[in-house]
C-alpha cells in the first residue's frame, strides 16, 4: 500500500509555517496601532498631570511656547475646523457633481480617460499643493479680497478642497456606478429625464457610499498637514475668520517637531495632547462613517 504519512506531516508543518507567517503580518499592523495609541495615551496622561483638562478644553489661547503659557486646544481646533469646513465646501459640491457627470452623463470612453486623470490629482505631493496655495491662490484671492493676510485659512482651505475633490468624486462615482442599471432603466421607462434619474434614483441608492466618501474626506482634511503648515500661518487663534493667519492642530505638531523643544518638557508634551485630540476626531469620524453606512444600508433609500 502506498504510504501517505511522510508527505502529509511535511505538508502540515509547511501549512503551520504559512499560518504563523500570515498571523505575524496581520498582528504587526494591529500592534503598531496599539503602540501608537499607548504612546499617545501615556504622554497625554503626563501632560494632563501638569495642565488641567478644564483649562485644556475651555481656555481660548494656545501659547505653550511663550513665557505666558496657555493651553487652550480650542484655538487649534478652531483653525482645523475652519480650514476643513472651507475644504468641504469646495470638495463636496464639486465632487458630487463630477461624480454625477462621470457616472450618468459622460460616455464610457470619456469616463475611462478622465477618471484616472482626476485620480492623478490625488497623487500630487501635498507640499506642492501647499506652495500652490501660498504662492498662487493667496495672491489671486488678494486681488478680490484686499484685507486678506499673506497667511490665512481661506486659501489652503480651497486648495485642500481641490486636493480632496478626486477622492470624493472617485468614491462617489464608484458608489453610483455600482447602482444596478436596472434601476435607471426602471426610471427611464417611466419618462424620467437624465437629471431626475441621477438625483432621485441613483444618488439616493448610492447614498451610503457617497456619505462615507464625505466623512472620509472630512477625516482627510482634519488630518492634512503640509498645505496648512505652509499656507495657513502659525498663529493659534480662537476665531472662525478665514482671512487671517491661524494654526491647525497638525501644523502645530509640525512646528514643535521642527523646533528645538527638548523632549520631556511640557512644551514637547503638548504635541501628544494635540495628537490625541486629532486622533479622537478622526476616530469619531470613522465611527460616524461606519454608522452611516450601516444605517443607510439597512434602509437602502
Amino acid at each position, binding site marked *: 500500500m502506498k504510504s501517505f504519512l511522510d508527505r502529509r506531516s511535511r505538508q502540515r508543518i509547511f501549512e503551520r509555517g504559512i499560518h504563523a507567517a500570515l498571523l505575524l503580518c496581520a498582528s504587526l499592523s494591529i500592534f503598531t496601532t496599539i503602540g501608537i495609541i499607548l504612546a499617545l495615551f501615556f504622554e497625554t496622561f503626563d501632560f494632563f498631570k501638569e495642565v488641567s483638562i478644564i483649562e485644556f478644553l475651555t481656555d481660548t489661547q494656545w501659547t505653550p511656547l511663550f513665557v505666558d503659557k496657555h493651553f487652550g486646544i480650542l484655538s487649534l481646533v478652531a483653525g482645523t475646523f475652519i480650514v476643513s469646513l472651507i475644504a468641504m465646501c469646495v470638495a463636496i459640491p464639486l465632487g458630487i457633481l463630477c461624480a454625477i457627470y462621470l457616472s450618468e452623463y459622460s*460616455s*464610457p470612453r470619456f469616463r475611462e480617460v478622465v477618471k484616472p486623470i482626476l485620480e492623478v490629482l490625488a497623487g500630487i505631493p501635498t507640499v506642492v499643493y501647499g506652495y500652490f496655495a501660498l504662492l498662487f491662490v493667496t495672491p489671486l484671492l488678494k486681488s478680490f479680497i484686499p484685507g486678506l493676510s499673506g497667511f490665512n485659512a481661506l486659501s489652503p482651505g480651497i486648495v485642500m478642497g481641490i486636493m480632496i475633490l478626486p477622492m470624493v468624486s472617485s468614491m462617489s462615482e464608484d458608489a453610483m456606478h455600482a447602482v*444596478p442599471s*436596472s*434601476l*435607471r*432603466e*426602471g*426610471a*427611464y*421607462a*417611466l*419618462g*424620467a*429625464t437624465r437629471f*431626475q434619474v441621477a438625483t*432621485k*434614483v441613483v444618488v*439616493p*441608492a448610492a447614498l451610503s457610499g457617497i456619505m462615507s466618501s464625505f466623512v472620509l474626506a472630512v477625516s482627510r482634511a482634519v488630518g492634512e498637514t503640509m498645505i496648512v503648515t505652509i499656507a495657513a500661518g502659525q498663529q493659534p487663534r480662537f476665531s472662525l475668520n478665514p482671512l487671517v493667519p491661524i494654526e491647525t492642530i497638525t501644523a502645530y505638531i509640525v512646528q514643535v517637531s521642527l523646533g528645538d523643544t527638548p523632549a520631556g518638557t511640557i512644551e514637547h508634551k503638548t504635541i501628544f495632547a494635540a495628537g490625541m485630540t486629532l486622533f479622537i476626531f478622526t476616530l469619531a469620524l470613522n465611527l460616524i462613517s461606519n454608522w452611516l453606512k450601516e444605517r443607510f444600508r439597512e*434602509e*437602502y*433609500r
Partner: protein
Amino acid sequence: MVDNDIVFQISNINAWYGEKHVLKDISMRIKQRKVTALIGPSGCGKSTFLRCLNRMNDFIHNFRLEGRILYKAQDLYSPETDPIEVRRTIGMVFQRPNPFPKSIYNNIAYGLQIFGIKDRAKLDAIVEDSLRKAALWDEVKDNLGQNGLALSGGQQQRLCIARAIAVNPEVILFDEPCSALDPVATAKIEDLIMELKNEYTVVIVTHNMQQAARVSDYTGFFMLGDLVEFDDTKKIFTTPANKLTEDYITGRFG
C-alpha cells in the same frame, strides 16, 4: 393606409450594436389593445426590437437604428420627438423585477412626482388604483410604507407593473417579465396581462412558447435578427407557414 387599430407601424428597421447587425429589415404592425408576443431563441433580437419601441436603446452608446417606426402616425425617431414623452406613453416592465429601493407607495408615486403631481389625495388615489389594476392591492394595502424590495419576486414584478400603469401609458412593453419568477407568480402575471389588454396595448417578449400561446393574440417569431413569421398566435402555433417556425415551436431547436 390609415387603420385606427394600428398603433405601431414599423417599416424596414435595421439595427446595429457597433458592427453587429442585430435587426434585419423588420416590418411589423402592432394592433391596439391586443397582446403581441415576440418569441425566438436567445440573441435573436427580440428584446432589442422591443426596446426600439420606446427608445430604451438610446442609452446604449454604440447602438444605431435605421428605418421608421410610427406610433399613431408620429415618427418615434424624428428629431422633433421627445424621447421622454415617448417613454411616458409607452411604458416598460423588465426581465428582472426592478423596484426602486423605496416604499411600495413611493415606488408608484415616483413616476407621478417627476411629472410634478404633488397633491397627496390625487397620489393616494392613483397609487391605490394602480395597485388594484396590478392585482397587488389586497396583498399590500396595509403595508404601503414597506420597502418594495421586501416583497417576493412575483409581488415585485406586479409592483413594477403598477408603477408602469400609474403614469397612464397607452402601451406597456414586457421584456420577459416572468423569466425570474416561479410558476405560480408567472400565472398571476399572465392573468394580469390578459386583463391589461382591455385598456392597454401590450407587447411581450418571452422565452416561453406556452406563455406566448396562452396570452397573446399575435405572435412574431424572430431568429438571428430576422422576423421569420408574424401572424395570429393561433395560426403560428397550429399551422405555421415557415419551416423554421415550426421547428422552433415544436422544440426542435432553441
